[in-house]
């Protein structure tokens, strides 16, 4: 019946608010494009430099290596926790998600702190006569840090993919004479390929956008080169041009990912199959599987926490004061709370428009709001620095500008779950409220808000978590002297003061682990995003 498929034009107020948010999200990328086109000659000059080609190669090489390693770790773990009788698989499932609480620079700090002559390993192995170990840095340092940090993306998306599979498809293969192993290779794995690709591309994007780990490991990729350009050179145009090149690379990767996801939907012929798959008995592989899972948890959780604890102990013995850590924690929590509140508010008109008034206008605005997915924090930070210095100097190095950068970067994390939640609310409920004397706004507040509060808060919690971990944009845009846990960890680690950096790092991880643990069951893997 036509009425049910009918689309109403969106109310002007909602549409204009959403358009405003969309425009704000496009601000940094738009500015960089203008900046690059202003200096066309120089742009080509920078792009065609041989050093730029090297940056491409190094960035893509690191991303490819980390992605491959994450797939090798994440896929088997996903299979173990969803399909087998692995002892304690629920606990493992949570443990495998928790590394997401680590910011990359904290992980780099932990690796730096365990190797080298002064590292924890030497201190521990000293009793066995080990006197020195090479320090870790460069490609391998960045590779290990990012791999141990990012495999949860592949793990979460693949596990969701396995849960979405219709087990009868595999059973058909068995009845057609294929063994368990041939069924896995010939049926299960091809069906999972889109999920694996989606998870892998999240990892690739994370690596491309990462600033903290590569900087601390001194492995020059795009982000680090951009930062050095910006710091060293008087002319900031090359930094803007390189930023734009990085965005384009990210957009390319996102486009590939979108296609992979589109196909993933196509593949899931019977989503939410009525019957769960039968559990596979591991038999004599049971304990090897437990050991392997344990190794991953030791490397990705216990090791970094132990190293940080070790350095914290050193700091305490040396009498390092903690007052700077406490003030940095207050700064971080303050930014996290105001950043997530602002982002959630801005997400409301975008989500309402996308959920209730689908059409060309709303999909354009939604796409603009999603630009944050493709933007590295460093690039957004830089663009706002340039913008503020050129057009609104009083805004430069103020908290509102920091919050605006967070809004651009993390808007999709709040708007996506909110949109999904609003779509779940029957539009007839709002109409029923209208016929019972409520205006459009009253109906939304009294009928929709109570039902979407849970997912909306979950989205806000996710934003809070990511804001707390965010480093480069905060570093560039914060008022002079304003410190967060992230900036403290970064500055102390890059100055080699690991015993001082350990306290804010541990506190940060603890603060991030709480919302992450609470979210672990709520958040859909689709909402997880590279920083």
């Amino acid at each position: 019946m036509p009425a049910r498929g009918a689309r109403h034009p969106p109310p002007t107020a909602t549409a204009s608010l959403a358009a405003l948010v969309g425009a704000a999200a496009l601000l940094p990328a738009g500015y960089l494009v203008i900046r690059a086109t202003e200096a066309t000659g120089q742009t080509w000059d920078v792009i065609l430099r041989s050093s730029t080609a090297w940056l491409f190669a190094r960035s893509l090489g690191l991303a490819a290596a980390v992605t491959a390693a994450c797939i090798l770790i994440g896929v088997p773990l996903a299979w173990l926790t969803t399909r087998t009788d692995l002892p304690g698989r629920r606990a493992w499932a949570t443990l495998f998600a928790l590394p997401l609480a680590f910011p990359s620079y904290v992980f780099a700090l932990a690796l730096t702190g365990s190797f080298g002559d002064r590292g924890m390993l030497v201190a521990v192995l000293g009793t066995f006569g080990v006197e020195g170990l090479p320090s870790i840095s460069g490609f391998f340092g960045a590779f290990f840090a990012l791999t141990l940090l990012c495999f949860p993306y592949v793990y979460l998306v693949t596990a969701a993919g396995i849960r979405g599979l219709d087990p009868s498809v595999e059973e058909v293969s068995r009845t057609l004479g294929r063994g368990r192993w041939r069924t896995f290779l010939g049926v299960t794995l091809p069906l999972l390929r889109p999920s694996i690709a989606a998870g892998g591309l999240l990892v690739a994007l994370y690596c491309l956008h990462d600033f903290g780990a590569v900087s601390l490991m001194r492995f020059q990729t795009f982000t680090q080169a951009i930062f050095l350009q910006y710091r060293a050179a008087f002319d900031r145009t090359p930094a803007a041009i390189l930023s734009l090149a990085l965005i384009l690379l990210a957009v390319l990767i996102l486009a590939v990912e979108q296609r992979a996801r589109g196909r993933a939907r196509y593949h899931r012929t019977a989503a939410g199959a009525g019957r769960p798959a039968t559990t596979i008995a591991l038999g004599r592989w049971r304990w090897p599987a437990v050991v392997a899972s344990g190794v991953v948890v030791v490397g990705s959780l216990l090791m970094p926490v132990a190293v940080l604890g070790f350095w914290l102990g050193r700091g305490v013995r040396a009498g390092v004061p903690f007052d700077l850590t406490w003030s940095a924690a207050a700064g971080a929590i303050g930014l996290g709370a105001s950043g997530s509140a602002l982002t959630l508010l801005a997400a409301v008109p975008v989500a309402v428009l996308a959920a209730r008034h689908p059409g060309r206008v709303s999909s354009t605005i939604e796409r603009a709001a999603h630009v944050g997915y493709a933007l590295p924090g460093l690039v957004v930070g830089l663009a706002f620095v340039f913008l503020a210095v050129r057009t609104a100097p009083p805004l430069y190095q103020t908290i509102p500008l920091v919050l605006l950068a967070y809004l651009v970067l993390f808007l999709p994390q709040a708007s996506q779950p909110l949109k999904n939640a609003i779509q779940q609310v029957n539009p007839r409920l709002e109409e029923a409220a209208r016929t019972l004397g409520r205006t459009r706004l009253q109906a939304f507040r009294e009928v929709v808000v109570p039902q979407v509060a849970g997912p909306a808060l979950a989205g806000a919690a996710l934003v809070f978590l990511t804001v707390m971990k965010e480093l480069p944009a905060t570093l560039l845009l914060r008022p002079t002297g304003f410190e967060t846990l992230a900036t403290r960890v970064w500055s102390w680690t890059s100055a080699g003061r690991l015993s001082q950096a350990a306290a804010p790092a541990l506190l940060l991880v603890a603060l991030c682990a709480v919302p992450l643990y609470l979210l672990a069951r709520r958040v859909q893997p689709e909402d997880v995003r590279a920083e």
Partner: protein
Amino acid sequence: MTQTMTHDTVTADRNGSALRCVDLRKRFGATVAVDGLDLTVPRGELLALLGPSGCGKTTTLRMIAGLERPDTGDIWIHGRHVDGAGSVPPERRRVGFVFQDLALFPHLDVWGNIAFGLGGAPAERVEEMITLARLQGLERRMPHELSGGQQQRVALARCLVPGPDLVLLDEPFSNLDRMLRAAVRAEVRELLRAAGVTSVFVTHDNEEALSIADHVAVMLDGRIRQVGTPSSVYAHPVDGEVAELVGEMNLLPGSVRDRRASTAFAEVAASLPDGPCYVLIRPEDIGIDPDPAGPAVVVDVEYYGHDELIRCSIGPSEQEVMVRVVGTGPRLVPGDRVRLRLVGAARALPA
């Protein structure tokens, strides 16, 4: 009654009707949903808007409630011009709406749902309605904890509480299983009568429309084809399409000569010019007798217990004829030869 439902712009009460729609039109893109609809409903009446799915009946209902704006046309509710010169928003129309899926607020209990339309005012009105709808003891239940019939009563009570001028019901019984439907239908009619409110309900089920409505408006292709009491619409449909919509109907080709229309087994008076015509006969208006030399043959028998529907084929053109007989008649099986005769009314319409 809430403050938001105050009377504004009360104009002259045109012929005292509860609802008057004049030349309503609505299109969605290329599809015309409502195409020049005229409808008047007197106060206190229960009207069924009967039509096949896609005929525009739900769109019509939504336009009356203000949930959809007509492209052109006028709507008066209790003499108030709500569409035509400007549009009164749904929250100020004093119209109750029962949605097809009921749209009970899942986050509110029974009391909260029923009290919603009062904006937190007098509790007596809610209690009164809970009693009227026989929902005592269920006040603190959540919607998903209720049976289908109870949910139906909550939805109705919720829309009646503010004292609307008009209640609209969109396929109100379609979500109930067959066993429950007849009972709930009677309950709903009783509740609406007790509230003394004018009501319009939309349905595609002819049995439903005929059994509980005071008047039936048959809607086809975005317009009202015929309005009348259930018996008059059933007995005197204006055309074959309406006839088939309100019940099973044999549309038999025939011809008119000298004001008599004749078809395979019957002849009726017809005020039509000579030439081809259709003769309309309800299956229950045909008698059937076993006769080895009869002109018709039984093709198929659908047995329902209380009655059965027998499909026969008659004449060289193998014209299909449906005959309804009460379950006590002679047992017929496919292949039996029979003789048909007209025992009730028949009407001739131009071909």
